[in-house]
């Protein structure tokens, strides 16, 4: 079970048809001392320098965001994962994930720093030529220059390639002349450099690096937003902006590669930031519940509140398990691509593309976990939760955007299934053989088999069954609907949810298994696993039933529903007692402690 020597690393999406092993899985408990010190540094910075001035940030006090970004630059937070030859610290991907998580607790500031280090800096790192990297990256790593990313336009959001911004080569061939308008540009108010997507001659979608002081580039007014009010969000207008030809980013007509690849890492990073914000709010929730008294009891004594506290922790621990699992996979893939002779930026990008499905899942479930946590934080605070005087109100407003940017959660759900099917069609992922096997298995007499008594056998069985359930539903849908499947978005959402639940369940199980092997799993960790798997099986079954009933009927439907039921089995657990134990641990420590 624990040998890693001869095992091939899983490819992206392959978790669906292969077994994964704890020994191959990275868990955050394995972070080393240096990583922990860096995390502590980021934590200290957010707690000491950012959170105390949150109110002033939200009022967009002149120069404050810039000075905080500069401080982050001095600490090295802006250049952590930029290679050393470009002025960064060359830290690994997992450290990057960890730092994003810690900074994620910083509300509007977190959005500004994430936009700068992610979608602002990475296009130059991955797609810039050597001269562009040398010119921009060192200044972006220190914060001397701030970056923003201009993709969305008033008429093109999720449909990014429908952009209207135009680029035309000047008569002397020295410049591209940009005309158009970009919208929802994070850091728009102060960025020194913009990554801009425009269509050359109205056709070839291409990336450009545009200096903010270019003549003809103007910034709109600050948008009035529901949340993340401190983050600068503006329209950017381009009127005959002359961009030197050497600032063309990547290849002509290949802008979509930049736009979409950057989003893969962006999605994992968004999950990390959401997790950081959510952990903070879980702590705020516990600390309020343990001091607020009603009916002569701390409200943390009440089961209804314990349920919420436990559920917050269950969701966060689970998403964290998946996020670090994927981060390690991306890291390993990067190393193997490096070994095959690729340079670092391309290796990392290739690795992120490989795990694009996992990144999409993390984006969706990370942002939704944050939404759950902030919503319950408001609820636990009761009336005070609705007051702007207390922490939860801002967190509640700030959370909402996460389900929208970096690709809406709907787009990401569709992508999850779409990417899987495309890989199957290309022969990268053999979904067909296991799907056929499942049809055979359903026709045969159920295998009651000898009871497997090894630890976690039932949980492993549940997950392998869930994988079969997905292949059952998706396989039948593909057979039945063929090309019409892409028009059945409701069904695709169902399948995406089934895939995601399975990925999360498995990631959680692998983490707890490894913790147990390392002697650091306690009762509450087992409780988290048991409750999550128990509840996930119902959600899984619900999604599957809706999916099947949307395209099948009669005997065929009945037979598949029976199969689905068989593949949605779970161990019945006393979730009330489990949640109470989890809550007791949180209450005892008076913070999010898992």
């Amino acid at each position: 079970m624990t040998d890693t020597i001869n095992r091939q690393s899983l490819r992206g999406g392959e978790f669906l048809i292969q077994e994964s092993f704890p020994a191959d899985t990275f868990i955050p408990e394995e972070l080393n001392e240096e990583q922990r010190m860096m995390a502590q540094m980021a934590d200290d910075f957010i707690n000491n320098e950012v959170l105390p001035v949150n109110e002033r940030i939200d009022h967009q006090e002149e120069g404050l965001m810039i000075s905080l970004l500069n401080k982050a630059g001095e600490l090295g937070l802006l250049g952590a994962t930029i290679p050393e030859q470009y002025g960064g610290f060359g830290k690994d991907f997992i450290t990057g994930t960890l730092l994003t998580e810690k900074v994620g607790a910083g509300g509007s500031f977190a959005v500004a720093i994430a936009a700068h280090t992610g979608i602002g800096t990475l296009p130059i790192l991955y797609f810039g030529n050597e001269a562009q990297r040398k010119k921009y990256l060192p200044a972006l790593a220190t914060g001397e220059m701030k970056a923003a990313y201009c993709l969305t336009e008033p008429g093109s959001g999720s449909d990014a390639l429908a952009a209207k911004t135009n680029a035309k080569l000047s008569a002397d061939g020295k410049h591209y002349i940009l005309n158009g308008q970009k919208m929802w540009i994070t850091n728009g108010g102060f960025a020194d450099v913009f990554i801009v997507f425009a269509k050359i001659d109205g056709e070839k979608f291409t990336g450009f690096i545009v200096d903010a002081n270019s003549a003809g580039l103007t910034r709109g007014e600050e948008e009035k937003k529901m949340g993340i009010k401190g983050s600068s969000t503006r329209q950017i207008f381009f009127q005959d902006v002359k961009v030197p030809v050497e600032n063309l980013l990547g290849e002509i007509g290949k802008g979509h590669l930049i736009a979409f690849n950057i989003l893969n890492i962006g999605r994992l990073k968004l999950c990390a930031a959401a997790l950081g914000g959510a952990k903070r709010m879980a702590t705020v929730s516990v600390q309020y519940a343990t001091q607020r008294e009603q009916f002569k009891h701390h409200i943390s004594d009440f089961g209804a509140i314990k349920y919420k506290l436990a559920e917050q922790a269950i969701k966060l621990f689970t998403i964290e398990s998946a996020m670090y699992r994927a981060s390690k996979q991306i890291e390993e893939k990067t190393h193997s691509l490096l070994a095959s002779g690729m340079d670092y930026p391309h290796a990392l990008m290739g690795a992120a593309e490989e795990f694009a499905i996992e990144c999409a899942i993390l984006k969706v479930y990370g942002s939704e976990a944050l939404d759950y946590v902030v919503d319950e934080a408001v609820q636990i605070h009761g009336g005070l939760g609705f007051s702007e005087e207390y922490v939860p109100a801002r967190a509640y407003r700030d959370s909402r955007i996460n389900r929208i940017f970096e690709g809406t959660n709907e787009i990401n759900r569709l992508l999850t299934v779409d990417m899987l099917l495309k890989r199957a069609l290309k022969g990268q992922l053999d979904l067909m053989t296991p799907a056929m096997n499942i049809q055979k298995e359903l026709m045969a007499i159920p295998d009651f088999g000898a009871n497997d008594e090894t630890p976690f056998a039932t949980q492993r069985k549940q997950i392998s069954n869930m994988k079969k359930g997905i292949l059952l539903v998706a396989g039948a849908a593909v057979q039945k609907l063929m090309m019409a499947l892409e028009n059945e978005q409701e069904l695709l959402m169902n399948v995406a949810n089934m895939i995601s639940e399975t990925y999360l369940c498995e990631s959680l199980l692998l983490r707890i298994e490894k913790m147990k092997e390392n002697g650091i799993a306690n009762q509450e960790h087992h409780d988290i696993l048991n409750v999550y798997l128990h509840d996930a099986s119902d959600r899984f079954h619900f999604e599957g039933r809706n999916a099947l009933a949307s395209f099948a009927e009669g005997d065929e439907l009945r037979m598949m529903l029976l199969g689905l039921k068989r593949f949605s089995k779970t161990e019945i657990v006393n979730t009330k007692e489990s949640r109470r134990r989890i809550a007791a641990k949180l209450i005892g420590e008076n913070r999010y402690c898992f």
Partner: protein
Amino acid sequence: MITLTSTLFFYFYRPSEMHRNKRQNTNEIMKFLVCISKAPDTTTKISFTDNSTKFNNDKVQFIINPYDEWYALVRAIELKEKLGGTVTVLNVGAADNEAIIRKALAIGADDAVRIDAEPDDALFVASQIAQHVKSETYDIVLCGKETIDYNGSEVGGMIAGFLDWTFVSLATSLELNGNTATLNREIAGGHEVIELTTPFVLSAAKGMAEARIPNMRGIMAARTKPIKVISPVSAEKFSSIVSYELPKEKSGVKLISPEHPDELVNLLQNEAKVI
């Protein structure tokens, strides 16, 4: 130099010839020794083991004692950055203290010494440190004014005693001009300004410096900075801890309406038994 406060004392310390002779450092550069101890993070839930005779270390998050880190260490590093010199951090403790030692190195200390012993009491710690100081050529030994676990405020004075050096407690600032130091102390109703020459021992209080967050470069550099581990010297033990006790949990506050003074009197007399 002279600050305007309601009450002002101005002392001019002239260390005796004897003190001056003790100074062995013939180097040009100033050598700072900062003594750091570990303390439980302030959010730690305190509990005891072994029949309430031992502090329960289990799952406790330890940090560098804030007075040692924020004030003593950071000021030493600031002076080193401004005037040159070296900053060594010293901790008396077991190998698992190296995490906090490395944080001190990440903040900017040059090297570290760990005296490999589980500290028993202030006298033990002070005697170990003094022994090490005697074997080296430090100019200034800095401690925090107290550690936030036992709050003894003893080690600094004891080190000075063992070394026969001058001790300045509760210093809120430290400036250097050659080997002449100027220090401020908070005293009742005002400041005291002290001038003295090295070597000496000080204990640092709030105001001496501001907490510094170690940066990425510092954290990465900390890995390669040397931590010298030395064996403790034997020291006589004069006291031992018999038992610990947690403070009683605060009971709830009772609010008595102003219309019922009798009830208040009754509770004060019969329940609180204070009148």
